[in-house]
């Protein structure tokens, strides 16, 4: 019969009592090892942590308008207010590029339109234009440009020469105070005429971006016509003709009735200067 010694007995007893604990300890050791791998391997760690960070970031971004928005807006306002010059300095090149692009596009468009007009050079309209150019002496390309330009008479002012008092006014739409405009225009006109010490000469034109103020002086009054769009020699001639016609009639009205009212002058202006007549 097989006889067990003391050690064998002790080992059997250990096996019976400690087997579960050892397996448990081994499992824990394996888990710790796996965790250590995750912690020490960047890609493994990123796989676990990134989704949590992403979700938190998304929440944070969604909340920005509510939490940080007012503070950012206020800070920007203060910064812009305190550094206007720097802001202009920073925006200037961008604006410049935008304007340049716009001007380039407009020139391209104009060039295309001129080309299309030239291409139709054998049409009836082209022959009419040539004849008109030959009779009037106005260059053909000026006539082409005048056909392309979108001209509009915006306002007409009849102003007493020295006082700058408005005698009558035609306006397509109401803009600034017409009486103050008349005063200021008279002041500018007087200033320019004084500055060059040429009492016999008169200021004839003021250009303001898309607007031109055509000024026609008479002895006791002058007429200022605000034109938007293409202001060129043919239009100037046409405008002068209309002003002279109006003036002739206006003068005869004044001679016939020195007590002429502002309403009478306004009616006359409406007749001569509404779009159908220019």
């Amino acid at each position, binding site marked *: 019969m097989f006889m067990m010694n003391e050690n064998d007995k002790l080992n059997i007893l250990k096996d019976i009592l400690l087997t579960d604990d050892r397996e448990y300890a081994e499992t824990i050791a394996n888990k710790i090892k796996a965790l250590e791998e995750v912690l020490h391997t960047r890609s493994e760690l990123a796989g676990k942590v990134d989704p949590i960070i992403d979700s938190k970031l998304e929440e944070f971004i969604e909340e920005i308008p509510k939490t940080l928005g007012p503070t950012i807006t206020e800070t920007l306002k203060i910064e812009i207010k305190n550094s206007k010059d720097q802001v202009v300095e920073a925006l200037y090149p961008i604006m410049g590029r935008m304007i340049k692009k716009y001007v380039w596009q407009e020139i391209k468009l104009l060039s295309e339109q001129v080309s299309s007009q030239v291409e139709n050079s054998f049409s009836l309209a082209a022959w009419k234009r040539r004849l008109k150019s030959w009779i009037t002496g106005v260059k053909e390309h000026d006539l082409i440009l005048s056909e392309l330009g979108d001209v509009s008479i915006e306002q007409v002012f009849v102003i007493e*020469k020295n*006082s700058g*008092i*408005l005698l009558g006014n035609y306006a397509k739409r109401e803009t600034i105070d017409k009486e103050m405009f008349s005063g*200021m225009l008279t002041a500018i006109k007087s200033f320019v005429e004084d500055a060059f010490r040429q009492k016999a000469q008169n200021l004839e034109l003021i250009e303001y971006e898309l607007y031109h103020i055509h000024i026609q002086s008479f002895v006791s009054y002058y007429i200022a016509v605000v034109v938007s769009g293409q202001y060129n020699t043919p239009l100037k001639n046409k405008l002068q003709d209309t002003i002279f016609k109006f003036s002739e009639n206006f003068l005869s009205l004044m001679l016939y009735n020195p007590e002429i*009212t502002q309403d009478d002058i306004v009616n006359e202006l409406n007749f001569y200067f509404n779009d159908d007549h220019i």
Partner: protein
Amino acid sequence: MITSKKIVLLGHFGVGKTSLVRRFVEDSFSDNYKVTIGVHILKKEVTLPENQVNLIIWDIEGNEDITKTRSSYLLGSHGFIYVFDTTRKTTYENLASDLEHLKTTYNNVPVVVVGNKSDLVTRSHMKENKAYFKPVDYFSSAKTGANVDTIFEELTKKIIL
């Protein structure tokens, strides 16, 4: 019927011409002095018992010598308001000759003479300068509003008459 009349404010720099116009047109006053360059034009309607007048007010830049005021700004004027600073002698010591110049150059144009900043002077100062202040029509203060409306109404009456 409303008629329009051009009036011009004359006088040295800093006598309060712009402040008087502002008080009259906008009923406001500011202690910040900004020099007028060229001309500033404003308007206000004045209602008199029998007339309604649209005053076109030319507030021109100050000049120490009235003869050097740009004449083209004064041409066609229906009335002048000559303003001086009651506290500064340099602005009124030539008052008599300045008024004479206006009379000879613009014969029929009515003038109202105004000593402004009257809120800043004492009675004794007024007595001391009595001789200079003889041609004065009104003492005014654009700051308090004293006599401001009266000046413009009085000139309008003189123009209409």
